[in-house]
């Protein structure tokens, strides 16, 4: 019974991973091969839960995760590479540089700036009217 369940999980996992790979890496929308996977049976599954997820590696250039479903291990990796569309092969011009600096400054200002509370004096006058100080002279 376990063998049938494992085989079913394996087939379903392979189909799902293949579809993700086709859509993500080979479709007309996006031809960047940054996803890879492996589906294989686990040999020793004693004392392990039916479902377990574990991140194997997460560094600057990849994030790899292992999934255990039944007796099957599914490993998949996403590359964290700079996409070819993002790579700029021409030098930045001065107006672009200045514009980017202005945008960056505005962003920093808006992030660090906190607006102060504004009290409307007209509404406060009735409740908390300060007594007029008389001169001692």
């Amino acid at each position: 019974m376990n063998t049938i369940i494992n085989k079913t999980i394996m087939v379903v996992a392979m189909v799902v991973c293949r579809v993700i790979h086709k859509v993500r890496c080979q479709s007309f929308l996006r031809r960047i091969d940054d996803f890879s996977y492996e589906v294989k049976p686990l040999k020793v599954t004693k004392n392990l839960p039916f479902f377990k997820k574990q991140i194997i590696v997460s560094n600057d250039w990849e994030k790899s995760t292992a999934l255990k479903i039944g007796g099957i291990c599914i490993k998949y990796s996403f590359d964290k590479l700079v996409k070819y569309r993002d790579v700029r092969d021409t030098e930045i011009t001065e107006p672009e540089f200045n514009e980017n600096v202005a945008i960056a400054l505005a962003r920093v200002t808006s992030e660090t700036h906190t607006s102060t509370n504004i009290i409307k004096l007209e509404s406060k006058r009735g409740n908390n009217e300060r007594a007029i100080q008389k001169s001692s002279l």
Partner: protein
Amino acid sequence: MREQYKKAVFSLSFTQHFLNYIKKVEQKQGKTLHTNGVPLHYVAVLQIILILKDNEMSTESISYHFNNILGRGINQSSLSRTLTYLHETLALINYADNPFAEDKRYTYVELTGEGKKLQKFFLGSTQEPIPAIFGSSKLMTAI
């Protein structure tokens, strides 16, 4: 032969023996394994394993040295697929990997007898004579 050319001879000898080994496996299994040639990362991963010390053979170490030596990263699932191929199809290494097991005995990489034979060709530690083809007058190795 000049000493400096021997490195090229060893490298080519290794490639020749590796391809011959694949041909033997293909004949044994009765099917063609690579219709468009052997993928480069299969050879590169094997070469990295061949220069690693026995107690340093792990997926993390292979991945680290692959990136440092070749300047390109190999992700874990791709590396795992490659190691499975070298283990199950070519039987050049023994490989087991269970990322969920706490016991590290379930995760190991080691060379088999055939793998160790190829290691000698790669490192140039074999006593076999240099093939006559390298003495051809049209090659630099003939000098």
